[in-house]
C-alpha cells in the first residue's frame, strides 16, 4: 500500500516538474531544434509567460522584492496584489454565504410547503434558465462598481444551486422520522429544526462545494466587467498592457483562493456530516 502511495506521489511530482520545465524552456528548445513552422505558439512566453517571469511578477506585485519598503509599496497602489486578493476573497465569501443561507432558507420553506412550491415552481425554473453571467452588467448598473455588485453576482450564482439541492433534500426527508419526532412531542418548527434541516444537510453540502467555485467565478466576471479593485480587475489591467506574467500571477492566486474556500467548506462539511460513513474521522 505504501509503495503504491509512493508511486502516486512520485508521478504527481514528476508531472509538476515536467510541466514547469517545458513551460520554462520548451519554447527556446523547440526554436533551436525545430523548423520555424513547427514551433508551438502555445509555448510562446508572450502568450503564456513562463515560470521565472511569473515568479518575478509575483514578487513585484506582492511587494516582496524590496523588504525595506513593503508598507510603502502596498500603500503606493490602489489595487496591489494584497488588496486585490483580499477584496476578491471577501466578496466571494459574502456572496457565497448570503447565497447559501438564502438558498437553504428558500429550499426548506418551499420543500415543506406543497402550495408554495407549486406557486413559485414555474418562476424559479424560468429564472434559473437565465445564464447568470448575462445579468452581470445589469447588476453592476444597479449596484455600482464597488463590492456590492460583486457580492450580488456571487449571490445570483450560488442561490439557485443551493436552493434546488435543499429543496430536493427537504422533500427526501424520511416521513417516519418526522412522525417519530411528532409522536415525541415536536411541533412543526421543532421538526424543521431537528429533523428536516439536519436530514437535508447532506444534500445541501453536495451543492456547497460547486457553489463556492461558482461564487468565485461570479466575482471574477463581475470584476472583469466593471470594478475598482480585485483580482479580476488586475487581470484586465494586465491584459491591456499585454502582460501575460501578471495575468498568470492573478490566475494562480485565484487558484489558491479557490482551494482555500473549498477546504473551508469541506472541513465544515466533514464536521457537520460526521454521522455519515464517508465522513467518518479516520482513527
Amino acid at each position, binding site marked *: 500500500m505504501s509503495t503504491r502511495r509512493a508511486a502516486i506521489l512520485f508521478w504527481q511530482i514528476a508531472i509538476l516538474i515536467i510541466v514547469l520545465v517545458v513551460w520554462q524552456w520548451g519554447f527556446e528548445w523547440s526554436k533551436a531544434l525545430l523548423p520555424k513552422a513547427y514551433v508551438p505558439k502555445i509555448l510562446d512566453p508572450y502568450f503564456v509567460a513562463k515560470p521565472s517571469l511569473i515568479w518575478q511578477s509575483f514578487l513585484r506585485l506582492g511587494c516582496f522584492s524590496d523588504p525595506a519598503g513593503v508598507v510603502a509599496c502596498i500603500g503606493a497602489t490602489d489595487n496591489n496584489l494584497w488588496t486585490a486578493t483580499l477584496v476578491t476573497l471577501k466578496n466571494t465569501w459574502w456572496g457565497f454565504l448570503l447565497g447559501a443561507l438564502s438558498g437553504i432558507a428558500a429550499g426548506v420553506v418551499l420543500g415543506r410547503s406543497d402550495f408554495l412550491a407549486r406557486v413559485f415552481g414555474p418562476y424559479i425554473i424560468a429564472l434559473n434558465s437565465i445564464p447568470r453571467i448575462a445579468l452581470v452588467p445589469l447588476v453592476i448598473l444597479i449596484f455600482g462598481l464597488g463590492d456590492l455588485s460583486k457580492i450580488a453576482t456571487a449571490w445570483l450564482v450560488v442561490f439557485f444551486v443551493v436552493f434546488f439541492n435543499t429543496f430536493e433534500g427537504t422533500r427526501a426527508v*424520511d416521513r*417516519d*422520522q418526522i*412522525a*417519530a*419526532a*411528532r*409522536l*415525541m*412531542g*415536536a411541533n412543526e418548527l*421543532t421538526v424543521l429544526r*431537528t*429533523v428536516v434541516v*439536519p*436530514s437535508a*444537510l447532506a444534500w445541501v453540502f453536495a451543492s456547497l462545494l460547486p457553489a463556492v467555485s461558482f461564487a468565485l467565478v461570479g466575482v471574477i466576471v463581475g470584476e472583469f466587467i466593471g470594478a475598482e479593485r480585485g483580482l479580476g480587475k488586475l487581470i484586465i489591467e494586465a491584459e491591456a498592457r499585454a502582460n501575460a506574467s501578471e495575468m498568470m500571477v492573478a490566475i494562480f492566486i485565484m487558484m489558491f483562493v479557490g482551494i482555500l474556500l473549498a477546504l473551508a467548506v469541506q472541513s465544515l462539511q466533514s464536521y457537520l*456530516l*460526521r*454521522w*455519515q*460513513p464517508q465522513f467518518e474521522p479516520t482513527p
Partner: protein
Amino acid sequence: MKTYSTGGSEFVAVDNVSFDVREGEFVALLGPSGCGKSTILNMVAGLLPRSGGRILIDADGVEVGKVNPRVGYVFQRDTLFPWRTVEQNIGYGLEIAGVSKPERTERVAEAIGKAGLEGFGRSFPRMLSGGMRQRVALMRTLILAPEILLMDEPFGALDTHTKLEMHKTLLEIWERERQTVLFVTHDLGEALTLASRIILLSARPGRLKDDFEVSFPRPRDPVSLRETAEFGRLYSHIWHSLGEEFRRTKAD
C-alpha cells in the same frame, strides 16, 4: 381502560374490530400480513385518519394529528436520527420538552444502562447493530415514561437470536413498569412470549377473530418459556386458528 371501535369503508382494510385494553395489560395484535394490524395501531396513535368508528383512550377520543403525550410509539422501521448520537437520540423527547441538561444527562445515562448500551452513548446509530439500534429506539420512547406503549413489529427486522435478547429486555422493563402495551406482530412465538393477551385478527379485511389470555407466570424467561409444555399447547392451539388465516392470505 380503553375502548377501540374501528369501522372501515370503501377499500376495507380493517372492518368492525372492537376490543378493550385494560390498564397495565400487554396485548399482542396478531394476524397475517395485510390484515390491518399496523393500520389499527396507527389509528390509535393518531397517525392515520379512520373512516369510521371510535377510538377512546380513557374517555378521550383520539384525534388525528394531535399527539397524546401519554402514548409512546416504537416503529418497525429504523427511525433513529442518524445525525444524533445514541445519547442525543434517547434524550430527544426530553430535549424538546425542555428538560434541563443535567437532568437529561442523568435520565439518559439511566436509560442507556437499562438497555445495556453502556459505552455506546457517543456513537452514531450507523455504528450500531440492528438490535442495538432498536434498543435505542425503545429507550427513546420509554424515557418519556408513556403510560401506553404502541409497538409496530418493533423486532420484525431482527434475527432470531437478537430478537430473543430484545424480548428479554422488554420483559424486564415491562414487568417492572407495567405500561399498557399494544404490540403488533405476525410472530406467534413472540406474541406468546411477551403478551398477557393475544387478539387474533383475520386476513383482509381485518376482523376480530379470537381473543386469548396468555397466563404464563411472570417474570418470564423468553428462552425457557418456549420449552414448557404449556407454551407448546397454546402455540399449537392458536397456530391452528392462525393457520386458517395464513392460508386465506395465500389464496388471494
